[in-house]
């Protein structure tokens, strides 16, 4: 497996970045970040997922149509979560 082939360099670089990000999140639990730790954890997760989408799943070299298909699922998931929370978050607010 000749690793210095040009196609493999981005793969190893991405993998290294992913492992570093994982280490970051794991270490972050030690810090007293309190309320902030969940947003940080999610931000890192989004970063890792985007790396995998763009490099490993080669979205980088796909047409804009394929890229839209890749993101449309998350858009409707966001709608589902946002509007359902609109019910749960405002339940106790008196009319």
């Amino acid at each position: 497996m000749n690793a210095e082939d040009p196609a493999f360099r981005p793969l190893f670089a991405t993998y290294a970045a992913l492992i570093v990000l994982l280490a970051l999140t794991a270490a972050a639990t030690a810090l007293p970040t309190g309320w902030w730790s969940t947003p940080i954890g999610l931000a890192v997760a989004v970063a890792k997922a985007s790396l995998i989408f763009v490099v490993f799943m080669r979205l980088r070299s796909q047409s804009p149509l394929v890229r839209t298909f890749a993101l449309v699922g998350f858009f409707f998931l966001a709608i589902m979560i946002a509007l359902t929370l609109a019910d749960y978050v405002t339940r106790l607010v008196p009319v």
Partner: protein
Amino acid sequence: MNTATPPSLPAAYGDERQRDVANHLGMWTFIATEVLFFGGLFLAYVVYRVAYPAAFAAGSHTLNFWRGTLNTAVLLTSSLTMAMGDAYIKRGRRTALRNCVAATASLGVLFLAIKASEYQEMYAKHLVPGLPFDPAASPPLQLFVFLYFAMTGLHAVHMLIGLGLMAWLLRLNQRGRLTAAHHAPVEMFGLYWHFVDCVWVFLYPLLYLIPQR
């Protein structure tokens, strides 16, 4: 936007590039359905974490942090080996592909083994929904544990399907059906496997890393 197809070509498509793009579109549409399929569980997680933050923090505490982190590393590595396999087959390197797929599969098995040990540990702590539940635990903790088993369970099922597909890929490769020109099955499976890895990338912080305030 669509290339003019010479009228006389018999194939349902124009050229091979047309078929490759169609495969990608189809696979990414399938991944969109998987996003929403797991999405239902993520919705339940978000709603109940907003409703019972204390129980979720306690629930996350019962999970084994180190095994979760290790499992994430294992899965990220398996994504690397799968991506390398894909790069190799594009260059016609069939033996290298076999090694990569085998590596990916063994990492998948390792992941499931670690996961099984976590489940066993939860069973020992009487924290498995459906079975007699630990009375000291607050009711919403059982909610968290149910979500934990539902999310990681559904993810594990997708891993098992992945292992089955990898066995099929290896057999195809053995029979020489995978070449530099015809490598769609490897690429499509790669997309599926990377997606399953992405699901775990989100599960890990949400389940294992809820801070104890």
